[in-house]
């Protein structure tokens, strides 16, 4: 009898083990839920991930579903309606932190399952090609002497990465971040239009937004907020660190899953994404988008998000957006 029950127990354990193993691998179509419209930055990241993953890394077909709204919060909420289901993943950015800090979204990253960080998108500090501000030193001098004379414009919302980078420059240089005339545009291309038309003097945006205009000689990029120089059309542009100012900031992009994912499920995705990051196809995407590789697994991403939240809280307070 005892032997029998041992056998039953063993069989049960084996069955349970098999079930767990099964749960740690996708068994049907995977959905990447994108909280932005087709053709936008998030959508392009998701499509790039889809293409590379489908190419032999994940054994299931992948669909990209666009559910735009509230800077991505609508898409994340929709994904989170599938707790513990590894067939739903989404793209994440600092928005999840700023939304929480500013109280526009009740969702914290702890309420979801951050799986990995993939890249950082460093920012260009740009002026019109004919601007009197020839170098980063000119810009710094102008911001120090007469900040209220500078017309600064950026997309897409106050307190986002572009704005935070500006606050960090203000901290490093020592000027009042509230003084420059500040306007916000609906999208990166509106901000570029305004800069090209000289309706604003100065703008900050992810490197890829300006790279083509730097190459055509329409825009001067005075400095980048990267730890090291970027490639392509921006290889001549100095970093703020080189110039002696501690401004290193770039929004991250990563992959996030719904709440309550099992460690095995997380491990599956970490592994798949690591394989993806090593492919030539992905490296090509990274270079084309002027991204910088910044691959972190689940544990590291959790720590990173927590420190990043503190850093953002400080910057948003400087910008007067938080009490």
């Amino acid at each position, binding site marked *: 009898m005892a032997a029998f029950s041992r056998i039953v127990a063993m069989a049960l354990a084996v069955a349970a083990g098999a079930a767990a193993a099964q749960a740690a691998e996708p068994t049907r179509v995977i959905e990447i839920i994108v909280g932005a419209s087709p053709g936008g930055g998030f959508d392009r990241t998701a499509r790039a991930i889809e293409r590379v993953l489908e190419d032999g890394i994940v054994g299931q077909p992948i669909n990209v579903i666009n*559910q735009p709204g509230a800077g991505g919060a609508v898409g994340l909420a929709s994904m989170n309606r599938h707790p513990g289901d590894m067939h739903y993943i989404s793209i994440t950015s600092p928005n999840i932190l700023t939304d929480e800090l500013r109280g526009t979204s009740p969702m914290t990253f702890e309420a979801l399952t951050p799986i990995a960080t993939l890249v950082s998108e460093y920012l260009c500090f740009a002026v019109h090609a004919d601007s009197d501000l020839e170098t980063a030193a000119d810009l710094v001098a102008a911001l120090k002497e007469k900040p209220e004379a500078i017309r600064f414009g950026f997309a897409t919302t106050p307190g986002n990465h572009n704005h935070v980078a500006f606050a960090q420059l203000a901290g490093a240089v020592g000027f009042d971040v509230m003084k420059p005339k500040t306007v916000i545009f609906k999208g990166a291309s509106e901000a570029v239009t305004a800069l090209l038309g000289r309706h604003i003097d100065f703008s900050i945006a992810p490197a890829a937004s300006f790279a083509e205009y730097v*190459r055509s000689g329409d825009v001067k990029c005075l400095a980048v907020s990267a730890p090291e120089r970027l490639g392509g059309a921006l290889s001549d542009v100095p970093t703020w660190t080189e110039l002696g100012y501690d401004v290193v900031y770039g929004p991250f992009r990563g992959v996030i899953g719904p709440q309550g994912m099992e460690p095995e499920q997380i491990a599956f995705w970490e592994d798949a994404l690591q394989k993806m990051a090593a492919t030539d196809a992905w490296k090509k995407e990274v270079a*084309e988008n002027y991204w910088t590789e910044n691959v972190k697994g689940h544990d590291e991403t959790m720590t990173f998000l927590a420190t990043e939240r503190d850093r953002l809280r400080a910057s948003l307070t400087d910008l007067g957006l938080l009490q």
Partner: protein
Amino acid sequence: MDTVAFLATGIATAFSGWNFVYVLIGAFVGTWIGMLPGLGPSTGIALLLPLTYGLDPTGGMIMLCGIYFGSMYGGSISSILLNTPGDVSSVITMLDGNPMARRGRGGAALFCAAVASFIGGSVGLVGLTFLAEPIARFALRFGPAEYFALMTFALIATATLMQGAAVKGLMAIVIGLMIATVGIDLQSGAARFTMNSPNLFDGISLIAVIIGLFGISEVFTNIQEIMARRWGKVETVGRLWMEPSEWKRCRFSFLRGSVIGFMVGVVPGAGGAVATLLSYAAERRSSRHPEEFGKGAIEGVAGPEAANNASVGGALIPLFTLGLPGSSATAILLGALMIFGIQPGPHLFTENPDLVWGIIGSLYVANVVLVILNIPFIGIFVRMLMMPGAPLNAIILLLAVTGAYSLNNNVFDIQVALVFGVIGFLLRSAQVPLAPLVLAVALGGGLEQSLRQALSLSDGDPAGLVPSGIAAVFLGLSALLVLLAAILPATRLMSPRNRALRRAAKKEKRPQTQ
């Protein structure tokens, strides 16, 4: 190579390999997508974008541009026949197209829309081909202040859409502007009237409002008519072709609309709504029968439909020459280019001439294909008017709900559409015109934000609103229109004719739907 040679290779590209098939599919599918209530060009392109990912860049872009053009034309069909526009630019076509259909001139209205789309499309494309380089940088002169001036001018022009009592028209505009304030404010990041619902953070979707106000409330109105045993609004589908007198009335409308549409299209952010609106206002101002507008004036279909399609050529100029999208539809095309691995920017024309000229060439081909494809269908489309009420209502409702959902894959947009269906029905019953309301929703956000951007840049100095000749001209014209309306009550904007219209409207049993 000069422009003509480039264009020749572009048209050759359109006919090479599978490309011609993509043109055909794009034009055909685009027409059908555009025809569905609630699906306009930008939703149509966004919806079908993923289908093109497997194609090569040229083929994929050709198909998307075919869809863009096709859905522009398709939108006029449902506006004219069913009173259910799918996009803000076809709201204007509905104003006179639908009354024409009710009078048994639906075929002529569709024919006119097809011809107008062809002429407008051609003018826009010729402009794109030969003027792209010289006027590319013109778009850059539109900063916040210039944009605000243009939007003000457009808002004043919505007065021409008013039917009946001026106070109800103004009410409609104010309601529209109020709806446009919902959402996270761009300049401050503050949430306004969002009731803490993330679904409202990006504001109330304009397309969902259109689906509700026109599509769903049309169903309610139809039900009311069926219950009152007044169903059967159209006794006859009438003759399909345009009468010689109709041709004569709108030959200049085609050209005026085309030129206005092209010029407005070049300005980033203005798009089809402003183009059709300004064209309609121009037609009404220059017509010898302004009192017929809103009751089935064929010029009211010809001008705006030409403007609508001509704006496509204009909108592609900043996209191709500078990599800057000026409308939601071109923004999606820009994203598509990037997904195909092409970096749009000032180098697009010089570094990818085959692609750009291939797209332009296939747009010429798509423009011709659309006319050939659609004119034979007019006879079939017009039969929609004879459909019995119950199945027609079911179909409109089904398509409206599907259309609303497909905007963002979000059930919330269906709820918005349903709520606005009820609001639309009530407003119709109170004879509040819906078109100025929708135009105010479309213009309101841009109007407010550009005003605040311009004032931020000038430190609150109102002089900052007139930094350039462009801004001065549009603000001056707006002031002139208002003064004319105030000083001369006899002017076309205001009273006597409107009083006549009001009397006429009261005689009609059915509430005015515009």
